[in-house]
């Protein structure tokens, strides 16, 4: 559906996005994930047409659109702060795209009704944006985009300004909407949990560079770089003569005796989080390596009582070691 061919972006000589090539499939939910300033929004804006790549091409549905302005690209963007038109009602906002494309009035009505129903805005159509809550404004922004039946919907941190509970509800709603509509979603977020929950594939970005592309499962179970390993979920990174490897906290096992354990250390803290609890263990220094603290996650089946200050052994299955690049 979308193909990025070696696109690169520089702002005043500074590289913001390093040359990147990738294919986004039709009907896919793809997430660009990374910390702020990693270039994810710039990539999205290049796809939408608000930024010109310094070099490279954007191909949309088989057509090179690099030079086309945003109004000539068959995709829509949901802005981070919604960008609803304050002088128009909800209905006028949603109708805007259809009006610009001179869709016949009858068809406009029908499509607006569909979009309004799908986003549960039926009772709010005659309100103005400032009379709506954040969550409702978010829905209007989405309705305003999907009413155009774009091939691709781009979403720039659409839930960033909402509180946690609302966020969780809207995540489910968005995912459901994407399945129903069957259109391609390109989603930008810095929230790794959100990315894991919603995406078919995740692109992890750091400093304008792709660290890894993969399904949530691949990203979690076999991260390829140090950044990917530590940005998504918690991780324990060890150094070995062969290089770096990571072991997830839930793969580490504590044991009371230090004998025949792979590492040993002292419990610094025990954290109860309801369904799981965590042990923070400071490992004994071995040779010249600096001291490190590992996290062990235990689920509710663990009924031992671990004490702060206790010396324990730490073990894991060598098949759970994931070799990573620095």
């Amino acid at each position, binding site marked *: 559906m979308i193909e990025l061919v070696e696109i690169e972006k520089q702002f005043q000589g500074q590289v913001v996005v390093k040359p990147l090539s990738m294919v986004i499939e039709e009907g896919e939910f793809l997430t660009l994930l990374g910390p702020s300033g990693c270039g994810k929004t710039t990539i999205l804006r290049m796809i*939408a047409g*608000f930024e010109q790549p310094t070099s490279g091409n954007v191909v949309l549905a088989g057509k090179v659109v690099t030079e086309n*302005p*945003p*109004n000539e690209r068959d995709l*829509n*963007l949901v*802005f981070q*702060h919604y*960008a*609803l*038109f*304050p*002088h128009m*009602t909800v209905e006028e906002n949603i109708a*805007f*795209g259809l009006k*610009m*494309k001179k869709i016949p009035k009858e068809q406009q009505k029908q499509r607006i009704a569909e979009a309004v129903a799908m986003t549960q805005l039926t009772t709010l159509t005659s*309100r*103005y944006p*400032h*009379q709506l809550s954040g969550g409702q404004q978010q829905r209007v922004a989405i309705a*305003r*985009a999907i009413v*155009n039946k774009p091939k691709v919907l781009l979403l720039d941190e659409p839930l960033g300004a909402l509180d946690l509970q609302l966020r969780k509800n809207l995540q489910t709603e968005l995912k459901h909407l994407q399945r129903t509509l069957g259109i391609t979603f390109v989603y930008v977020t810095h929230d790794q949990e959100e990315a894991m929950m919603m995406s078919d594939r995740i692109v992890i970005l750091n400093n304008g560079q792709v660290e890894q592309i993969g399904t949530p499962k691949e990203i979690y179970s076999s991260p390829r770089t140090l950044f990917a390993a530590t940005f998504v979920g918690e991780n324990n990174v060890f150094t070995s003569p062969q290089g770096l490897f990571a072991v997830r906290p839930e793969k580490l096992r504590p044991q009371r005796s230090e004998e025949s354990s792979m590492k040993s250390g002292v419990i610094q803290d025990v954290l109860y989080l309801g369904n799981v609890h965590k042990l923070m263990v400071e490992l004994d220094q071995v040779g010249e390596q600096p001291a490190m603290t590992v996290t062990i996650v235990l689920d509710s089946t663990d009924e031992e009582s671990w004490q702060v200050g206790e010396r324990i052994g730490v073990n894991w299955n060598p098949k759970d070691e994931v070799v990573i690049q620095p």
Partner: protein
Amino acid sequence: MKKKGHPLLGIHSALMMIFIYVPIVLVMVYSFNNTRLSGDWKGFTLDWYVSLMKDRHVMEALMNSLVIAVISTVVATLLGTISALSMRDFARKWKGPLNGVLYMPVIIPDIIMGLSLLVLFSQLQIPLGKSTVMIAHITFSMSYVYVVVNARLAGMGRQLEEAAQDLGATYWQTFRYVTLPQITPGIISGALIAFTLSLDDFMVSFFVAGPSSTTLPIYIYGQVKRGISPEINALCTLLILVSITLILLAQYVLNRGKGQKKHKMLPF
């Protein structure tokens, strides 16, 4: 319980109100006073308004002022708005200096403005008349329009226009349906400022007006030198009413039919 400020603050506000409004109220009251000699109240009359209407010189000056104000307001509003719109697309390094240049006339003393324009017109051998006054008025009021519209544009940001483009709007559609409605309040307040400035400008007009283009403030100044007549009081009262009506009208136009937050230019 309502929190109360220091009692002196209340007295201060009252004194300020008196200080600002007493002179204006006095002028209004005396315009209805049935005597040529100001000072004592000798009963209510509308005579001064009637004789004002009959005074050919006053009516001529009024017409001059209105024509100059309307034309210079329209031109200054157009030019100021276009400058504000085009300044957004300039590279950042040019923005600072250009902004300064456009802002200049707001802070340049009127006397320098008037003098320099007079020098310019005489260098170019343009005869002084209504057109020179208009050019002068456009020159300074354009900057006020620019400043107001620019602030409005800066507050609006780019996102709304990007959203419009993203939804398929062309450059002109974006301007027509999004940018223009958003900056209209700024344009209207800019125009109002321009109109008021033109209507009551004395200093600059005094330098660049010719014999055929006496404006109201210049005429009033000429009259007052021979003593304040009740007709002048009546004239000032009318001018105050016109200004207030204009502002209320603009406020009404702005708020008509829109469900948005109300724009307020006056505290009432």
